[in-house]
């Protein structure tokens, strides 16, 4: 098991492309997206039921040393469009199919 960082971003789905671009620029090419999550934030309630505003939830597992570059690339997007970004610790069970994360 290897220590990794889990980066999570919840934001308006219109930001998704910019967030993924930010991750890629920071060298993090692998990620997972949960589409159409709903929520409540400073921009108010977001839900397909209220109107066509939807959030996406992005999760990227990366090496601890990559975190700073990721934040640097995501911060302008978050500053401009809002959303929430979390960093936490986890251990990754590497399988033989895993190239270096």
């Amino acid at each position: 098991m290897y220590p990794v960082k889990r980066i999570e971003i919840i934001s308006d789905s219109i930001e998704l492309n910019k967030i993924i671009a930010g991750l890629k620029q920071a060298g993090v090419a692998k990620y997972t997206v949960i589409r159409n999550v709903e929520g409540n934030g400073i921009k108010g309630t977001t839900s397909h039921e209220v109107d066509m505003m939807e959030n996406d939830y992005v999760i990227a597992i990366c090496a601890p040393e990559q975190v700073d570059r990721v934040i640097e690339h995501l911060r302008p997007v978050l500053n401009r469009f809002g959303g929430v970004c979390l960093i936490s610790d986890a251990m990754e069970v590497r399988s033989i199919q895993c190239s270096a994360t």
Partner: protein
Amino acid sequence: MNTSLILSNILNPPVLFFFLGMLAIFVKSDLEIPAPLPKLFSLYLLFAIGFKGGVELVKSGVDQAVILTILASILMACVVPLYTFFILRLKLDAYNAAAIAATYGSISAVTFITAGSFLQQLDIAFDGYMVAALALMESPAIIVGLILVKLFTANQSESQEFNWSEVLREAFLNSSVFLLVGSLLIGVLTGEHGWEVLKPFSQDMFYGVLTFFLLDMGLVAARRIKDLEKTGIFLIGFAILIPILNAGIGLLIAKLIGMSQGDSLLFCVLCASASYIAVPAAMRLTVPEANPSLYVSTALAVTFPFNIIIGIPLYLYGINFFWS
């Protein structure tokens, strides 16, 4: 005003289902139309009116009436956001004023479709090429709105620079415009023959899908109503009076260029309606400084129900009055 017009509009299944949707929220029923079903309905409606419009356009051909209609449409789509912007600036900052102005400069396809089915019910003819007007009036307001932002907001940081290729794509290639125009072109290409094979799907289901879509719109509009507290009385008044003003200007232009009564109603409805999907999405992306609940809630919770329930018969009443 002729209340029988309002009644014959309201006693229409789609409009009644719109009320039913609103009622569901007011009485706290758990009725919901889960995603992505509303998307299915809206894709279908855009496809069906685009395709039918194309088939009819090829029948009618492009004559002077078509060209005048198209010019009038583009004119209104560019002018409406300009004067509404300055009205809105009385109370709002430039970001919010521009975003709302863009919303009201653009159109609501479902309001247009509901007006079409109202005309059909009253046996008033209208031309297929009005769908082209619908398609042309969706995008220009986005561009006008962003130019207003550029002109009337100072010292923009570099991060606030627009990415114009992104903006143009949002304006002219967003899914509504793209599917509507694409279906229209395919209707033109396949003509009568294509219509034959697709008619049972694109015509016979139309009214039913519209009914379901308006049921969902009722739910959506009613959920937005509580936002109106924050919106304030100025914007609520704006959201009722501006559609009437826009429809009035539309009516004059329609009379001027000699549109038929049916086409005039559709043109007035295009001028009076506000976009609650395409333009808000473009604004969230390009003017995040504006508050979405202002431009979405006014369009969705006030102007849309107003047009569907009162506006459509009111504008027709005005047209009947002027044309006689």
